[in-house]
């Protein structure tokens, strides 16, 4: 039997991050295929109240390292606790997943380097499946591996997507950006059935080589485009910052709607990074995504292709975005969008939909 599927939880101000729950949801599918337990490792302080959420997301087993020194994430103490615990296991986890956040990207490579194991960054799809390594430069890799972690991610090279795997050593690791997977439906189960292992925390003086002087977090004013039902996204085709005013006006026609952007629009400074959609921005899956003046490069596409309805407006009929949008409008966005605002405001959609 394969080892556990382990999700290393992330918490901010003592609250389990959404990405952790998303990973538990996806980890459930992997654990089922492996016929292994799905466990969650929580590090923090006063985390008792959060355990319920992790159980509801579907964890079978919880490791809890609760200690004042773990209240705020710091590389070395977190690294110590995780490595101390994992090295004491008879067999390592089969799979170890973390969010691809500033925290996960700081910690996951430390764990991977310690265990000299593989780590796939910014994965967009996970699965378990077989792999056969036939010939090659490296004879030690030859063999048949029935249960590998498949981690798919966009690749920069000639092709668009690459499957990365490394069954030669456990844990097989991957980081995943927030929003890539959906929040799981609540699992109802008796919390008493879920074992909690309290982890002893033994930090060493070496672990305090970095001290925290100050933490600055803005309360409230966080922009989270991943929560919106409707995203009106603008790209380089807007040609100026003012274009976003027009997009905001269209967004204003909908409930729970925000504007989003391509990286090129962010890079030129028309709008802030929290609005960026794509491989190096947010992954969104709104009900409606309207892409305005966005060419549809792969790195943008991976951040929005799971939207339910994609409408693209582009003046170039050969723009790649038309290969995966549901509706393509070939035209100048500065004519199309004002028209769309006009028609929506005039009530074009408020008539009862005709039932077929």
């Amino acid at each position, binding site marked *: 039997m394969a080892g556990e599927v382990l999700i290393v939880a*992330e918490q*901010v101000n003592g609250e389990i*991050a959404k990405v952790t729950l998303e990973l538990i949801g996806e980890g459930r599918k992997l654990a089922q295929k492996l016929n292994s337990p799905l466990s969650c490792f929580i590090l923090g302080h006063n985390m008792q109240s959060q355990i319920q959420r992790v159980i509801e997301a579907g964890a079978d087993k919880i490791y809890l390292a609760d200690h004042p020194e773990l209240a*705020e*994430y710091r590389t070395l103490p977190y690294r110590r606790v995780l490595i101390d615990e994992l090295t004491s296991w008879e067999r390592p986890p089969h799979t170890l997943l973390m969010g691809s956040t*500033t925290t996960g*990207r*700081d910690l996951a*490579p*430390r764990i*991977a*380097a*310690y265990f*000299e*194991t*593989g*780590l*796939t*960054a910014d994965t967009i799809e996970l699965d378990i499946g077989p792999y056969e*390594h036939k010939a090659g430069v*490296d004879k030690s890799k030859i063999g048949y591996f029935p249960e590998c972690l*498949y981690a798919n991610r966009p690749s920069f*090279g*000639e092709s*668009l*997507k*690459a*499957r990365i*795997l*490394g069954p*030669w050593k456990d844990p097989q690791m991957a980081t995943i950006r927030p929003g890539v997977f959906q929040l799981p439906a609540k699992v109802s189960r008796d919390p008493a059935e879920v074992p909690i292992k309290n982890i002893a925390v033994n930090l060493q003086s070496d672990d305090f*080589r*970095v*001290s*925290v*002087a100050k*933490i600055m*977090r*803005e309360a409230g004013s966080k922009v989270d485009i991943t929560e919106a039902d409707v995203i009106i996204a603008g790209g380089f085709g807007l040609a100026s910052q003012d274009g976003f005013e027009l997009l905001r006006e269209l967004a*204003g026609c*909908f*409930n729970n709607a925000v504007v989003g952007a391509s990286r090129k629009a962010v890079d030129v400074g028309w709008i802030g990074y929290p609005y960026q959609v794509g*491989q190096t921005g947010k992954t969104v899956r709104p*009900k*409606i995504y309207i892409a305005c003046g966005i060419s549809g490069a*792969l790195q*943008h596409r991976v951040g929005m292709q799971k939207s339910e*309805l994609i409408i693209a407006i582009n003046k170039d009929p050969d*723009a790649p975005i*038309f*290969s995966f949008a549901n*509706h*393509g*409008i*070939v035209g100048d966005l500065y*004519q*199309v969008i004002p028209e769309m605002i006009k*028609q929506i405001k005039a009530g*074009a*959609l408020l008539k009862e939909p005709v039932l077929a």
Partner: protein
Amino acid sequence: MANKDLNIYVLIKQVPDTRSKAGVNPDGTIDRAKAGKMLNPFDAFAMEAALNAKAMGGPNSRVTAVTMGPPPAIDILYQALEHGIDKTCILSDRKLAASDTLATSYALTKTLEYLESKDGPADLVFCGLQTTDGDTAQVGPEICERMNLTQVTYVEGFTVENNKIHARKVIEGGAMEVIAELPALLTIANSYKKLKFKTFRGAKFVQEVKRNKPLQDEFIEVVDLAKVSARDEQCGLPGSPTIVSMTWKIGTVGGNCTMHQGKSAEELVGAVLAKESSHIAEFVKR
């Protein structure tokens, strides 16, 4: 207390040039053979940080730029020298082909240890946040683990005071100020200061180095795996715990986009809204 002389390294990589049109397909994929080459844009921030750290250290502080890559990557080392970096080193070896991040971090660690054996222990190592081709942000922290350096990632600004690093870094939902002991490895966020223009002196100097072989040997050290005492089995394919088992194009899937064109904006918009009214209507403000 004045800072001591700092022995500083900056890790830089040559990547395919995505700014020019050459080799860049409209769907964002890269034809590596056709694409030009450039310095990883994130590493320009690391270079600026390394030069600023040098200015904060004692008078004999120095910065060495280190890269791992095929021989043409020497270009970015010339670029480093133009910007006032003191000396450079390139690790080049056929056996490094197909290295993943773990193998890369091993080879770069061995190179840094080799340089330390000549220059004395490292005080500071700077990395870019990530590369535009690998795009993992893993190599820096993996080197940190191997060399037991203190780690500060996503650094937006820093000073060196009393031989400690005072840094501001990005965290989830905000920023954090930390004080880190030396020796340390910092990965520099792209919100850090932009790399200043190359200096006139630097540019002139590089022209001279390009013409003068003994100067090249002095300022650009070329090493291979044997020279840095790296074990072959920890490099390249054998040293990489991961492989790419398959790749596929997703550009052709889908293709059932309903196109609306060649009509007035009014008709185009009307057609889409009519077609999708059942889907859109519930989100429209009433």
